[in-house]
Protein backbone atom coordinates (compact mmCIF):
# COMPACT_ATOMS: atom_id res chain seq x y z
CA UNK A 1 0.00 0.00 0.00
CA UNK A 2 1.45 3.37 -0.98
CA UNK A 3 1.05 6.64 0.89
CA UNK A 4 -1.92 7.79 -1.19
CA UNK A 5 -3.91 4.63 -0.56
CA UNK A 6 -3.39 4.61 3.19
CA UNK A 7 -6.71 5.97 4.44
CA UNK A 8 -5.36 6.97 7.87
CA UNK A 9 -2.18 8.76 6.84
CA UNK A 10 -3.95 12.02 5.95
CA UNK A 11 -5.11 12.27 9.57
CA UNK A 12 -1.48 12.84 10.58
CA UNK A 13 -0.38 16.16 9.05
CA UNK A 14 3.07 15.96 10.69
CA UNK A 15 3.93 13.13 8.29
CA UNK A 16 3.51 15.46 5.34
CA UNK A 17 6.78 17.35 5.57
CA UNK A 18 10.33 17.38 4.24
CA UNK A 19 13.24 16.49 6.47
CA UNK A 20 16.70 17.21 5.09
CA UNK A 21 15.00 18.02 1.76
CA UNK A 22 13.44 14.54 1.56
CA UNK A 23 9.92 13.36 2.35
CA UNK A 24 9.72 12.35 5.99
CA UNK A 25 9.45 8.60 6.64
CA UNK A 26 8.70 8.29 10.33
CA UNK A 27 9.77 4.87 11.60
CA UNK A 28 10.40 5.62 15.27
CA UNK A 29 6.96 4.65 16.51
CA UNK A 30 8.23 2.39 19.28
CA UNK A 31 9.73 5.51 20.86
CA UNK A 32 6.61 7.60 20.38
CA UNK A 33 3.81 7.78 17.83
CA UNK A 34 2.49 10.80 15.98
CA UNK A 35 -0.92 12.24 16.85
CA UNK A 36 -3.91 12.50 14.50
CA UNK A 37 -5.26 16.01 13.93
CA UNK A 38 -8.53 15.11 15.66
CA UNK A 39 -6.67 14.19 18.84
CA UNK A 40 -4.63 17.41 18.65
CA UNK A 41 -7.90 19.31 18.19
CA UNK A 42 -9.42 17.51 21.18
CA UNK A 43 -6.51 18.68 23.32
CA UNK A 44 -6.89 22.28 22.20
CA UNK A 45 -10.66 22.06 22.59
CA UNK A 46 -10.37 20.91 26.19
CA UNK A 47 -8.11 23.80 27.14
CA UNK A 48 -10.19 26.30 25.14
CA UNK A 49 -13.58 25.32 26.51
CA UNK A 50 -13.63 22.97 29.47
CA UNK A 51 -10.43 23.32 31.48
CA UNK A 52 -10.91 22.96 35.25
CA UNK A 53 -9.55 20.74 38.00
CA UNK A 54 -11.24 17.38 38.57
CA UNK A 55 -13.17 16.08 41.58
CA UNK A 56 -12.85 19.35 43.49
CA UNK A 57 -15.12 22.04 42.16
CA UNK A 58 -18.89 22.29 42.20
CA UNK A 59 -19.01 24.67 39.25
CA UNK A 60 -19.93 23.76 35.70
CA UNK A 61 -16.46 23.60 34.17
CA UNK A 62 -15.26 21.36 37.02
CA UNK A 63 -18.21 19.12 36.35
CA UNK A 64 -17.42 18.93 32.62
CA UNK A 65 -13.76 18.26 33.23
CA UNK A 66 -14.48 15.55 35.82
CA UNK A 67 -17.04 13.89 33.61
CA UNK A 68 -14.66 13.71 30.64
CA UNK A 69 -11.82 12.49 32.88
CA UNK A 70 -13.92 9.61 34.18
CA UNK A 71 -15.44 8.86 30.78
CA UNK A 72 -11.92 8.42 29.40
CA UNK A 73 -11.23 5.95 32.19
CA UNK A 74 -14.24 3.90 31.11
CA UNK A 75 -13.10 3.97 27.48
CA UNK A 76 -9.70 2.67 28.53
CA UNK A 77 -11.33 0.02 30.72
CA UNK A 78 -13.29 -1.28 27.73
CA UNK A 79 -10.24 -1.01 25.46
CA UNK A 80 -8.29 -3.56 27.52
CA UNK A 81 -11.42 -5.36 28.75
CA UNK A 82 -10.86 -4.69 32.44
CA UNK A 83 -13.71 -5.82 34.67
CA UNK A 84 -14.11 -2.51 36.55
CA UNK A 85 -13.26 1.08 35.70
CA UNK A 86 -11.65 1.56 39.14
CA UNK A 87 -8.97 -0.91 38.03
CA UNK A 88 -7.68 1.79 35.67
CA UNK A 89 -5.18 4.09 37.39
CA UNK A 90 -3.85 7.14 35.58
CA UNK A 91 -0.05 7.36 35.77
CA UNK A 92 2.68 9.33 34.02
CA UNK A 93 3.41 6.39 31.75
CA UNK A 94 4.62 2.79 31.68
CA UNK A 95 7.69 3.51 33.79
CA UNK A 96 5.64 5.25 36.46
CA UNK A 97 3.08 2.44 36.48
CA UNK A 98 5.73 -0.25 36.96
CA UNK A 99 7.39 1.80 39.70
CA UNK A 100 4.07 2.08 41.54
CA UNK A 101 3.67 -1.71 41.48
CA UNK A 102 7.22 -2.17 42.79
CA UNK A 103 6.90 0.51 45.48
CA UNK A 104 3.43 -0.52 46.62
CA UNK A 105 2.75 -4.20 45.96
CA UNK A 106 6.47 -5.00 46.06
CA UNK A 107 7.20 -3.11 49.24
CA UNK A 108 4.24 -4.77 50.95
CA UNK A 109 4.71 -8.34 49.77
CA UNK A 110 8.41 -9.02 49.21
CA UNK A 111 10.65 -10.21 52.02
CA UNK A 112 14.27 -11.37 52.11
CA UNK A 113 14.82 -14.52 50.09
CA UNK A 114 11.74 -14.07 47.90
CA UNK A 115 12.19 -14.22 44.15
CA UNK A 116 11.29 -11.71 41.46
CA UNK A 117 11.45 -13.12 37.94
CA UNK A 118 11.94 -11.05 34.78
CA UNK A 119 13.63 -11.84 31.44
CA UNK A 120 16.74 -10.84 29.53
CA UNK A 121 14.76 -8.78 27.03
CA UNK A 122 13.22 -6.31 29.47
CA UNK A 123 13.79 -2.64 28.84
CA UNK A 124 15.05 -0.57 31.74
CA UNK A 125 11.52 0.47 32.84
CA UNK A 126 10.67 -3.16 33.56
CA UNK A 127 14.06 -4.00 34.99
CA UNK A 128 15.41 -1.31 37.29
CA UNK A 129 12.30 -1.05 39.55
CA UNK A 130 12.57 -4.82 40.22
CA UNK A 131 16.34 -4.73 40.54
CA UNK A 132 16.10 -1.94 43.12
CA UNK A 133 13.26 -3.68 44.97
CA UNK A 134 15.35 -6.85 45.12
CA UNK A 135 18.32 -4.90 46.50
CA UNK A 136 16.20 -3.14 49.14
CA UNK A 137 14.43 -6.29 50.27
CA UNK A 138 17.35 -8.71 49.89
CA UNK A 139 15.24 -10.63 47.41
CA UNK A 140 16.56 -12.65 44.48
CA UNK A 141 16.19 -11.26 40.95
CA UNK A 142 16.10 -14.03 38.31
CA UNK A 143 16.21 -13.72 34.54
CA UNK A 144 14.38 -16.07 32.15
CA UNK A 145 16.45 -17.01 29.10
CA UNK A 146 15.42 -16.31 25.51
CA UNK A 147 15.03 -18.98 22.85
CA UNK A 148 16.83 -18.90 19.48
CA UNK A 149 14.24 -16.54 17.99
CA UNK A 150 14.44 -14.19 20.98
CA UNK A 151 11.16 -15.17 22.64
CA UNK A 152 11.04 -15.48 26.42
CA UNK A 153 11.57 -19.23 26.79
CA UNK A 154 8.63 -21.06 28.37
CA UNK A 155 10.69 -24.09 29.35
CA UNK A 156 13.13 -21.87 31.22
CA UNK A 157 10.22 -19.91 32.74
CA UNK A 158 9.00 -23.20 34.26
CA UNK A 159 12.44 -23.67 35.82
CA UNK A 160 12.98 -20.11 37.03
CA UNK A 161 9.51 -19.56 38.54
CA UNK A 162 9.28 -21.45 41.86
CA UNK A 163 7.24 -21.43 45.05
CA UNK A 164 9.56 -18.66 46.28
CA UNK A 165 8.56 -16.42 43.37
CA UNK A 166 6.30 -13.53 44.35
CA UNK A 167 6.37 -11.37 41.21
CA UNK A 168 6.87 -12.21 37.52
CA UNK A 169 7.13 -9.23 35.17
CA UNK A 170 7.52 -9.65 31.41
CA UNK A 171 7.22 -7.45 28.34
CA UNK A 172 4.28 -8.49 26.16
CA UNK A 173 6.15 -7.32 23.04
CA UNK A 174 9.90 -6.65 22.98
CA UNK A 175 10.88 -3.11 21.97
CA UNK A 176 14.03 -4.51 20.35
CA UNK A 177 13.40 -8.05 19.11
CA UNK A 178 9.80 -7.58 17.98
CA UNK A 179 8.62 -10.84 19.56
CA UNK A 180 5.21 -11.36 21.18
CA UNK A 181 5.94 -13.20 24.39
CA UNK A 182 3.67 -15.98 25.71
CA UNK A 183 2.54 -13.88 28.69
CA UNK A 184 -0.72 -15.79 29.07
CA UNK A 185 1.16 -19.06 29.54
CA UNK A 186 3.72 -17.39 31.82
CA UNK A 187 0.84 -15.96 33.91
CA UNK A 188 -0.49 -19.51 34.39
CA UNK A 189 2.93 -20.67 35.58
CA UNK A 190 3.23 -17.67 37.91
CA UNK A 191 -0.23 -18.26 39.36
CA UNK A 192 0.43 -21.97 39.89
CA UNK A 193 3.21 -20.89 42.26
CA UNK A 194 1.17 -18.15 43.93
CA UNK A 195 3.04 -15.29 42.24
CA UNK A 196 1.46 -12.25 40.61
CA UNK A 197 1.93 -11.59 36.89
CA UNK A 198 2.88 -8.12 35.67
CA UNK A 199 2.70 -7.44 31.93
CA UNK A 200 4.60 -4.54 30.40
CA UNK A 201 2.25 -3.62 27.58
CA UNK A 202 4.11 -0.55 26.30
CA UNK A 203 4.65 -2.14 22.88
CA UNK A 204 1.58 -4.38 22.70
CA UNK A 205 -1.42 -2.28 23.74
CA UNK A 206 -0.90 0.24 20.88
CA UNK A 207 -0.56 -2.48 18.23
CA UNK A 208 -2.89 -5.40 18.96
CA UNK A 209 -6.00 -6.38 20.88
CA UNK A 210 -5.07 -6.83 24.54
CA UNK A 211 -7.58 -8.39 26.90
CA UNK A 212 -6.45 -8.40 30.53
CA UNK A 213 -9.10 -10.92 31.56
CA UNK A 214 -8.09 -13.32 28.82
CA UNK A 215 -4.39 -12.92 29.68
CA UNK A 216 -5.31 -13.21 33.36
CA UNK A 217 -2.51 -10.84 34.23
CA UNK A 218 -2.62 -9.17 37.63
CA UNK A 219 -1.13 -5.90 36.45
CA UNK A 220 -0.66 -4.25 33.04
CA UNK A 221 1.32 -1.08 32.36
CA UNK A 222 1.27 1.03 29.20
CA UNK A 223 1.84 4.56 27.90
CA UNK A 224 -0.47 6.97 26.11
CA UNK A 225 2.12 8.56 23.84
CA UNK A 226 2.92 5.29 22.07
CA UNK A 227 -0.75 5.00 21.00
CA UNK A 228 -1.54 8.44 19.54
CA UNK A 229 -2.02 10.14 22.92
CA UNK A 230 0.01 12.81 24.68
CA UNK A 231 3.21 12.22 26.65
CA UNK A 232 3.05 12.15 30.43
CA UNK A 233 -0.06 9.98 30.65
CA UNK A 234 -0.14 6.22 31.06
CA UNK A 235 -2.13 3.48 32.68
CA UNK A 236 -1.67 1.05 35.49
CA UNK A 237 -4.25 -1.71 35.33
CA UNK A 238 -4.51 -3.93 38.38
CA UNK A 239 -7.04 -6.47 39.61
CA UNK A 240 -9.37 -4.74 42.01
CA UNK A 241 -8.68 -7.14 44.86
CA UNK A 242 -4.93 -6.51 44.65
CA UNK A 243 -5.22 -2.74 44.24
CA UNK A 244 -7.59 -2.52 47.20
CA UNK A 245 -5.05 -4.22 49.43
CA UNK A 246 -2.14 -2.08 48.24
CA UNK A 247 -0.99 1.04 50.09
CA UNK A 248 -0.78 4.34 48.17
CA UNK A 249 2.74 5.46 47.24
CA UNK A 250 2.22 9.17 46.70
CA UNK A 251 0.51 11.27 49.30
CA UNK A 252 -1.32 14.56 48.95
CA UNK A 253 -4.52 15.98 47.57
CA UNK A 254 -7.36 13.87 46.20
CA UNK A 255 -6.02 10.49 47.37
CA UNK A 256 -7.54 10.93 50.84
CA UNK A 257 -10.82 10.11 52.47
CA UNK A 258 -10.38 12.10 55.66
CA UNK A 259 -7.31 13.77 57.10
CA UNK A 260 -6.91 14.14 60.84
CA UNK A 261 -3.94 15.85 62.41
CA UNK A 262 -2.05 12.64 63.02
CA UNK A 263 -3.64 10.10 60.72
CA UNK A 264 -5.39 9.87 57.37
CA UNK A 265 -7.76 7.44 55.73
CA UNK A 266 -7.40 6.72 52.04
CA UNK A 267 -9.78 7.40 49.21
CA UNK A 268 -11.30 4.54 47.22
CA UNK A 269 -9.84 3.13 44.04
CA UNK A 270 -8.69 4.43 41.64
CA UNK A 271 -8.13 7.85 43.28
CA UNK A 272 -6.07 6.32 46.10
CA UNK A 273 -3.20 6.15 43.62
CA UNK A 274 -3.80 9.52 41.94
CA UNK A 275 -2.38 12.07 44.35
CA UNK A 276 -2.28 15.70 43.31
CA UNK A 277 -3.74 17.30 40.22
CA UNK A 278 -3.42 14.64 37.51
CA UNK A 279 -2.66 15.09 33.82
CA UNK A 280 -6.33 15.86 33.17
CA UNK A 281 -6.06 16.89 29.53
CA UNK A 282 -3.69 13.98 28.90
CA UNK A 283 -6.16 11.47 30.32
CA UNK A 284 -9.12 12.90 28.43
CA UNK A 285 -7.21 13.04 25.17
CA UNK A 286 -5.94 9.49 25.68
CA UNK A 287 -9.61 8.56 25.77
CA UNK A 288 -10.05 10.19 22.35
CA UNK A 289 -6.96 8.38 21.05
CA UNK A 290 -8.57 5.14 22.21
CA UNK A 291 -11.73 6.14 20.29
CA UNK A 292 -9.65 6.66 17.16
CA UNK A 293 -7.87 3.29 17.53
CA UNK A 294 -11.12 1.48 18.34
CA UNK A 295 -12.73 2.88 15.22
CA UNK A 296 -10.00 1.29 13.08
CA UNK A 297 -10.07 -1.83 15.24
CA UNK A 298 -7.02 -3.24 16.99
CA UNK A 299 -7.22 -6.50 15.04
CA UNK A 300 -7.15 -4.50 11.80
CA UNK A 301 -4.11 -2.57 13.02
CA UNK A 302 -2.38 -5.81 13.99
CA UNK A 303 -3.19 -7.42 10.61
CA UNK A 304 -2.10 -4.35 8.66
CA UNK A 305 1.24 -4.15 10.50
CA UNK A 306 1.78 -7.87 9.89
CA UNK A 307 1.27 -7.19 6.21
CA UNK A 308 3.98 -4.51 6.37
CA UNK A 309 6.35 -6.89 8.15
CA UNK A 310 5.66 -9.61 5.56
CA UNK A 311 6.67 -7.08 2.94
CA UNK A 312 9.72 -5.44 4.52
CA UNK A 313 11.43 -8.19 6.52
CA UNK A 314 12.44 -10.36 3.53
CA UNK A 315 13.75 -7.23 1.79
CA UNK A 316 15.87 -6.34 4.81
CA UNK A 317 17.18 -9.90 5.12
CA UNK A 318 18.15 -9.65 1.47
CA UNK A 319 20.58 -6.79 2.10
CA UNK A 320 24.04 -8.29 2.24
CA UNK A 321 25.74 -7.63 5.56
CA UNK A 322 22.53 -6.69 7.36
CA UNK A 323 21.70 -8.60 10.54
CA UNK A 324 18.12 -8.54 11.81
CA UNK A 325 17.71 -9.38 15.50
CA UNK A 326 14.82 -11.51 16.69
CA UNK A 327 12.84 -13.92 14.48
CA UNK A 328 13.70 -14.07 10.78
CA UNK A 329 10.25 -15.40 9.98
CA UNK A 330 7.84 -12.50 9.33
CA UNK A 331 4.99 -14.50 10.88
CA UNK A 332 6.80 -14.37 14.23
CA UNK A 333 7.97 -10.76 14.02
CA UNK A 334 6.00 -7.64 14.96
CA UNK A 335 6.57 -4.25 13.37
CA UNK A 336 9.54 -3.40 15.63
CA UNK A 337 12.63 -4.40 13.65
CA UNK A 338 16.19 -3.99 14.96
CA UNK A 339 19.20 -4.45 12.73
CA UNK A 340 22.88 -3.72 12.18
CA UNK A 341 25.02 -3.37 9.09
CA UNK A 342 28.36 -5.20 9.22
CA UNK A 343 31.20 -2.86 10.07
CA UNK A 344 29.00 0.19 10.52
CA UNK A 345 27.94 1.64 13.87
CA UNK A 346 24.14 2.10 14.13
CA UNK A 347 24.63 5.83 14.82
CA UNK A 348 26.37 6.23 11.46
CA UNK A 349 23.61 4.22 9.79
CA UNK A 350 20.90 6.31 11.49
CA UNK A 351 22.56 9.55 10.38
CA UNK A 352 22.61 8.25 6.81
CA UNK A 353 18.92 7.34 7.01
CA UNK A 354 18.13 10.73 8.54
CA UNK A 355 19.76 12.42 5.56
CA UNK A 356 17.30 10.47 3.41
CA UNK A 357 14.40 11.65 5.58
CA UNK A 358 14.02 8.32 7.39
CA UNK A 359 13.64 8.58 11.17
CA UNK A 360 14.81 5.46 13.03
CA UNK A 361 16.22 5.00 16.49
CA UNK A 362 19.82 3.97 17.08
CA UNK A 363 21.24 2.98 20.43
CA UNK A 364 20.64 0.44 23.17
CA UNK A 365 16.88 1.17 23.32
CA UNK A 366 17.00 1.32 27.12
CA UNK A 367 17.70 -2.41 27.10
CA UNK A 368 21.41 -2.63 27.92
CA UNK A 369 21.27 -6.11 29.51
CA UNK A 370 19.64 -7.37 26.29
CA UNK A 371 22.42 -5.77 24.21
CA UNK A 372 24.96 -7.56 26.41
CA UNK A 373 22.98 -10.80 26.01
CA UNK A 374 23.12 -10.37 22.21
CA UNK A 375 26.82 -9.46 22.35
CA UNK A 376 26.36 -6.02 20.77
CA UNK A 377 26.47 -2.46 22.05
CA UNK A 378 23.62 -0.98 20.03
CA UNK A 379 21.31 -1.48 17.06
CA UNK A 380 19.35 0.60 14.60
CA UNK A 381 15.59 0.11 14.92
CA UNK A 382 12.76 0.79 12.50
CA UNK A 383 9.32 0.58 14.09
CA UNK A 384 6.15 0.85 12.00
CA UNK A 385 2.62 1.94 12.83
CA UNK A 386 -0.63 1.69 10.87
CA UNK A 387 0.00 5.01 9.09
CA UNK A 388 3.20 3.67 7.56
CA UNK A 389 3.12 2.11 4.12
CA UNK A 390 4.97 -0.22 1.81
CA UNK A 391 6.33 2.91 0.17
CA UNK A 392 7.88 3.87 3.53
CA UNK A 393 9.32 0.36 3.73
CA UNK A 394 10.84 0.68 0.25
CA UNK A 395 12.44 4.02 1.14
CA UNK A 396 13.89 2.45 4.30
CA UNK A 397 15.39 -0.44 2.36
CA UNK A 398 16.78 1.79 -0.41
CA UNK A 399 18.23 4.23 2.13
CA UNK A 400 20.00 1.44 4.01
CA UNK A 401 21.54 0.25 0.75
CA UNK A 402 22.58 3.82 -0.17
CA UNK A 403 24.12 4.40 3.25
CA UNK A 404 26.02 1.13 2.98
CA UNK A 405 27.38 2.22 -0.39
CA UNK A 406 28.35 5.62 1.00
CA UNK A 407 30.51 4.09 3.68
CA UNK A 408 31.95 1.45 1.37
CA UNK A 409 33.07 3.94 -1.25
CA UNK A 410 34.17 6.72 1.04
CA UNK A 411 32.05 9.59 -0.14
CA UNK A 412 29.23 9.89 -2.66
Amino acid at each position, binding site marked *: MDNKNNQWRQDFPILDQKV*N*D*ENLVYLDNAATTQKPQTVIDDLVNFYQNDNANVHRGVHTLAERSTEQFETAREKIQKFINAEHSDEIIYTKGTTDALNIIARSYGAENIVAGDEIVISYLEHHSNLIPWQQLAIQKHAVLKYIELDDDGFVDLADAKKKITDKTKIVSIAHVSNVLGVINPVKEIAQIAHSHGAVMVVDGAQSVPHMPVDVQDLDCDFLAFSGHKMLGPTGIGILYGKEKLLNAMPPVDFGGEMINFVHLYETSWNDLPWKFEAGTPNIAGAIVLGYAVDYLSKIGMQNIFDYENELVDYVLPKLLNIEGLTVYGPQDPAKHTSVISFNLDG*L*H*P*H*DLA*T*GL*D*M*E*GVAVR*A*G*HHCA*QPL*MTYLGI*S*ATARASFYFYNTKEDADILVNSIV*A*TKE*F*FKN*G*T*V
Partner: protein
Amino acid sequence: MALSKMDNLYRQVILDHSAHPHHHGELSDSTNEIELKNPTCGDVLQLDVKVENDTIKDIAFSGYGCTISQASASMMTDAVMNKDTKTAEDMIEAFSDMILGEKSDTDILEDAAVLKGVSQFPARIKCATLAWKALHKALNKD
Protein backbone atom coordinates in the same frame (compact mmCIF):
# COMPACT_ATOMS: atom_id res chain seq x y z
CA MET B 1 20.42 12.96 -3.28
CA ALA B 2 20.34 13.96 0.34
CA LEU B 3 23.10 11.55 1.31
CA SER B 4 25.53 13.99 -0.31
CA LYS B 5 25.08 16.16 2.79
CA MET B 6 26.86 13.46 4.70
CA ASP B 7 30.08 14.59 3.05
CA ASN B 8 30.04 17.51 5.48
CA LEU B 9 30.09 15.05 8.34
CA TYR B 10 32.05 12.13 6.99
CA ARG B 11 35.02 13.84 5.31
CA GLN B 12 37.53 11.42 3.83
CA VAL B 13 40.06 12.17 6.56
CA ILE B 14 37.45 11.22 9.18
CA LEU B 15 36.69 7.93 7.46
CA ASP B 16 40.44 7.22 7.23
CA HIS B 17 41.01 7.90 10.92
CA SER B 18 38.04 5.70 11.82
CA ALA B 19 39.17 2.83 9.61
CA HIS B 20 42.81 3.07 10.75
CA PRO B 21 42.79 4.79 14.14
CA HIS B 22 46.05 6.18 15.47
CA HIS B 23 47.21 5.35 19.01
CA HIS B 24 44.70 2.55 19.31
CA GLY B 25 45.37 0.16 22.17
CA GLU B 26 46.48 0.35 25.77
CA LEU B 27 49.52 1.71 27.63
CA SER B 28 51.36 -0.42 30.16
CA ASP B 29 52.94 2.63 31.83
CA SER B 30 50.06 5.10 31.90
CA THR B 31 49.76 7.61 34.72
CA ASN B 32 46.15 8.61 34.09
CA GLU B 33 43.36 6.33 32.90
CA ILE B 34 39.64 6.72 32.44
CA GLU B 35 36.72 4.75 31.06
CA LEU B 36 33.91 6.86 29.70
CA LYS B 37 30.56 5.70 28.35
CA ASN B 38 28.23 7.41 25.93
CA PRO B 39 24.91 6.74 27.69
CA THR B 40 22.85 7.25 24.53
CA CYS B 41 24.34 4.29 22.70
CA GLY B 42 26.33 2.35 25.28
CA ASP B 43 29.64 3.00 23.53
CA VAL B 44 32.72 2.73 25.70
CA LEU B 45 36.00 4.61 25.46
CA GLN B 46 39.03 3.60 27.52
CA LEU B 47 41.76 6.25 27.53
CA ASP B 48 45.28 5.72 28.87
CA VAL B 49 47.58 8.75 29.24
CA LYS B 50 51.21 8.95 30.34
CA VAL B 51 51.95 12.39 31.79
CA GLU B 52 55.50 13.36 32.76
CA ASN B 53 56.60 16.88 33.77
CA ASP B 54 53.15 18.17 32.85
CA THR B 55 53.56 16.84 29.32
CA ILE B 56 51.56 14.13 27.55
CA LYS B 57 54.35 11.70 26.70
CA ASP B 58 52.12 8.91 25.44
CA ILE B 59 48.42 8.26 24.90
CA ALA B 60 46.24 5.38 23.69
CA PHE B 61 42.56 4.60 23.41
CA SER B 62 40.44 1.47 23.08
CA GLY B 63 36.78 0.50 23.29
CA TYR B 64 34.11 0.70 20.64
CA GLY B 65 32.07 3.38 18.99
CA CYS B 66 30.82 4.92 15.79
CA THR B 67 32.84 6.42 12.96
CA ILE B 68 32.68 9.89 14.49
CA SER B 69 33.72 8.88 18.00
CA GLN B 70 36.57 6.67 16.77
CA ALA B 71 37.88 9.29 14.33
CA SER B 72 37.63 11.99 16.97
CA ALA B 73 39.60 9.87 19.45
CA SER B 74 42.24 9.11 16.84
CA MET B 75 42.62 12.78 15.89
CA MET B 76 42.63 13.87 19.50
CA THR B 77 45.46 11.50 20.40
CA ASP B 78 47.50 12.79 17.43
CA ALA B 79 46.84 16.39 18.36
CA VAL B 80 47.74 16.25 22.06
CA MET B 81 50.79 14.00 21.82
CA ASN B 82 53.84 15.71 23.37
CA LYS B 83 51.79 18.77 24.31
CA ASP B 84 51.86 20.17 27.83
CA THR B 85 48.68 19.63 29.79
CA LYS B 86 47.75 23.34 29.74
CA THR B 87 47.85 23.33 25.93
CA ALA B 88 45.83 20.10 25.91
CA GLU B 89 43.16 21.73 28.07
CA ASP B 90 43.04 24.70 25.71
CA MET B 91 42.55 22.30 22.82
CA ILE B 92 39.74 20.50 24.64
CA GLU B 93 38.00 23.83 25.14
CA ALA B 94 38.56 24.88 21.54
CA PHE B 95 37.19 21.55 20.31
CA SER B 96 34.11 21.79 22.52
CA ASP B 97 33.40 25.36 21.36
CA MET B 98 33.88 24.36 17.72
CA ILE B 99 31.47 21.42 17.97
CA LEU B 100 28.84 23.58 19.67
CA GLY B 101 29.14 26.00 16.77
CA GLU B 102 30.71 28.73 18.89
CA LYS B 103 33.70 30.91 18.01
CA SER B 104 36.81 28.86 18.49
CA ASP B 105 40.54 28.79 17.76
CA THR B 106 40.45 25.75 15.49
CA ASP B 107 44.04 26.23 14.25
CA ILE B 108 45.43 24.55 17.36
CA LEU B 109 43.32 21.42 16.76
CA GLU B 110 45.30 20.16 13.75
CA ASP B 111 43.42 17.37 11.88
CA ALA B 112 40.62 17.42 14.43
CA ALA B 113 39.46 20.77 13.06
CA VAL B 114 37.87 18.80 10.23
CA LEU B 115 35.21 17.61 12.72
CA LYS B 116 33.73 21.13 12.61
CA GLY B 117 30.99 19.70 10.36
CA VAL B 118 29.58 17.78 13.33
CA SER B 119 28.17 21.07 14.62
CA GLN B 120 25.54 20.78 11.85
CA PHE B 121 24.51 17.34 13.18
CA PRO B 122 23.41 18.01 16.78
CA ALA B 123 22.51 14.37 17.38
CA ARG B 124 26.17 13.42 16.87
CA ILE B 125 27.84 15.98 19.16
CA LYS B 126 28.09 13.49 22.03
CA CYS B 127 29.91 11.05 19.73
CA ALA B 128 32.49 13.66 18.72
CA THR B 129 33.17 15.01 22.19
CA LEU B 130 33.47 11.69 24.06
CA ALA B 131 37.25 11.34 23.64
CA TRP B 132 37.92 14.97 24.52
CA LYS B 133 35.77 14.74 27.65
CA ALA B 134 37.66 11.59 28.56
CA LEU B 135 41.00 13.39 28.22
CA HIS B 136 39.77 16.26 30.36
CA LYS B 137 38.63 13.83 33.06
CA ALA B 138 41.82 11.77 32.85
CA LEU B 139 44.04 14.85 33.23
CA ASN B 140 42.02 16.10 36.19
CA LYS B 141 41.76 12.80 37.99
CA ASP B 142 43.40 12.68 41.38
